[in-house]
């Protein structure tokens, strides 16, 4: 199997503000979010980073998408280093998170062209991709409707399609179904399976067991910024992912939930 994502000893530490220290009732000024994380994802698979809130999933995905820099270690996406070649990495990935929004004033048609240009996609290629993707995900009828007037489900579809405007090799998705209603969540999971069928490699983070069981080929369990377990569902869970997760959590943290 060909390695498409390789994280090598990623480490990220944040400074806690006085306000954060007060909220968390802690005297520590530094917090290690990701602590020497290493894992690999292979071409054509859906890899899930599973962990509780604060485990370091989002920080890891932000480092992989070059939005933040690792303090130590490096990661390679389609052979490009996030530390040394951030712009090349951004051209081979599509990154989706609820924090990234589309300007409500513009139409899906305009934004598709704009983000295509941002990734350096040629006009001819862009026109073909737009026609194909808009038809495939039912956006074509809403292509000239301002984003602010779209339904939540359609907006999610538009965001997803725009994130892959440049036909990236790797799609990184932070908490893909978090906060979505059941219909929109289904749009997203169907979209991810479609992408997989198109031969794309997908890396997602989640704390939802059912999502991992439904769509992930392999999973990495992350606790306190470290990889606690990694493998296929069969290798890790042997039938019950939730039970296995809490056993691992207990063995790492020494806490009984």
């Amino acid at each position, binding site marked *: 199997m060909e390695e498409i994502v390789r994280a090598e000893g990623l480490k990220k530490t944040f400074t806690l503000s006085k306000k954060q220290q007060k909220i968390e009732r802690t005297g520590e000024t530094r917090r290690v979010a990701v602590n020497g994380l290493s894992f690999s994802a292979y071409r054509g698979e859906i890899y899930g980073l599973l962990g509780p809130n604060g485990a370091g999933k989002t920080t890891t995905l932000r480092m992989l998408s070059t*939005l933040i*820099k690792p303090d130590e270690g490096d990661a390679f996406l389609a052979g490009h280093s996030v530390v040394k070649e951030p712009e090349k990495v*951004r051209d081979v990935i599509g*990154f989706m998170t609820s*924090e*990234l*929004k589309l*300007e409500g*004033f513009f139409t899906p048609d305009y934004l598709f062209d704009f983000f295509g240009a*941002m990734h350096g996609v040629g006009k001819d290629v862009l026109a073909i991709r737009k026609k194909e993707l808009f038809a495939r995900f039912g956006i074509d009828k809403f292509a000239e409707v301002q984003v602010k007037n779209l339904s939540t489900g359609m907006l999610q579809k538009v965001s997803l399609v725009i994130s892959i405007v440049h036909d990236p090799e790797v799609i990184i998705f932070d908490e893909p179904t978090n906060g979505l209603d059941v219909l929109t969540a289904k749009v997203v999971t169907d979209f991810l399976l479609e992408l997989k069928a198109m031969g794309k490699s997908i890396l997602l983070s989640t704390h939802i067991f059912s999502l991992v069981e439904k769509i992930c080929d392999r999973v990495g369990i992350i606790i306190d910024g470290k990889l606690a377990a990694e493998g296929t569902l069969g290798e890790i869970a042997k039938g019950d992912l939730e039970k296995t997760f809490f056993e691992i959590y207990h063995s790492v943290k020494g806490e009984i939930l």
Partner: protein
Amino acid sequence: MKLLSLMKKEFHRFFHDPRLIVTMLLPGILIFLLYTFIGEIAYSDEPHEFKVYLSGESAVVGVIEQGLRENGDKVEWLPLEDEEEARAAIEEGEATAILTFTENFDLLGEGARAGIVYDDGSEDGIYFYSFVSSVLIGVGMRFPIDVETVKEDAAVGTEFLSALLPMLIVCFIFSACMSVTLESVAGEKERGTLATILVTSAKRRDIALGKILPLSCISMIGAASSFLGVALSMPKLMGVSLGALGGYSVWSYLLVLLLMISIVPCIVALISTVSALSRSVKEASGYVSVLMILFMVLSLVTNFVPSMGGPAYAIPVLGAVVAMQKILAGGLAVWGSCLAVGMNLLFTALLVFVMTRLFSSERIMFGK
């Protein structure tokens, strides 16, 4: 290519939103209507009758008389025999002004001076003074007139142009820049749409320039609208004829225009930087309002501090204000203007660099 797309997006956002266009042009229209209305109340359209004490001879006197006659006004010239008596008559409202010319005035040689004494509390006095000053500038006089008022208040007229206009220009440019830049930078950061662009492979420098360049062009439209509003309402508001503006040379106009153009990207870059550092539009507008007041106060101060000369030209924005004040007072200030324009461009380039760093900073762009 990416820079071009980023610029097009900003233009598209502005020119396809009638609300934004109206917001940009409205201040100019409102200024024109408001100032004209105030002027209508303050000044009557009745023909004026002036009694002016005259000392010395000049062909300018004939030009003034003819100009006033064309406006339907009358002027009676009285010989200046006792200045104290003449001043008392002006103060009493029995005469309008004292106008003096040195012997060699028409030769415009060394020592050629013109002087005027008038009552700046009288409508006739202000009207006559502005008319005379516009005529003097119009005939090519390039040095200040000796202006005195019978009361101790400051004079208005061309001094208004040189003292207040640069400050008003900065104020209008700042307002125009604020209305588009805050929304485009702080607004996009707050809404998370800027982060979506940061995930693409566009260079951070292109993203910074892709904001500053188009926003500067758009802001110039707003600033021009406000400036036109003032210029067109000035005849009504101050009794200052637009002829006073027409008296400046083409070079003066070009220099003022160049100075104005150089201020715009400077202020846009400054507001963009503050916006990038702020977490919300509200926070950014708070900081920018303080900056605007600071610039306004400094713009006024420079006019009343005579020692503000050479070094002041090197201060971004303020240098341009000082240069404009010099030009509008009848000087040319070519080197000062060039220095001011250069410093503005340098400061803009520096802020583009700072913005590039800010867009690359995870603490600034993604910090909570």
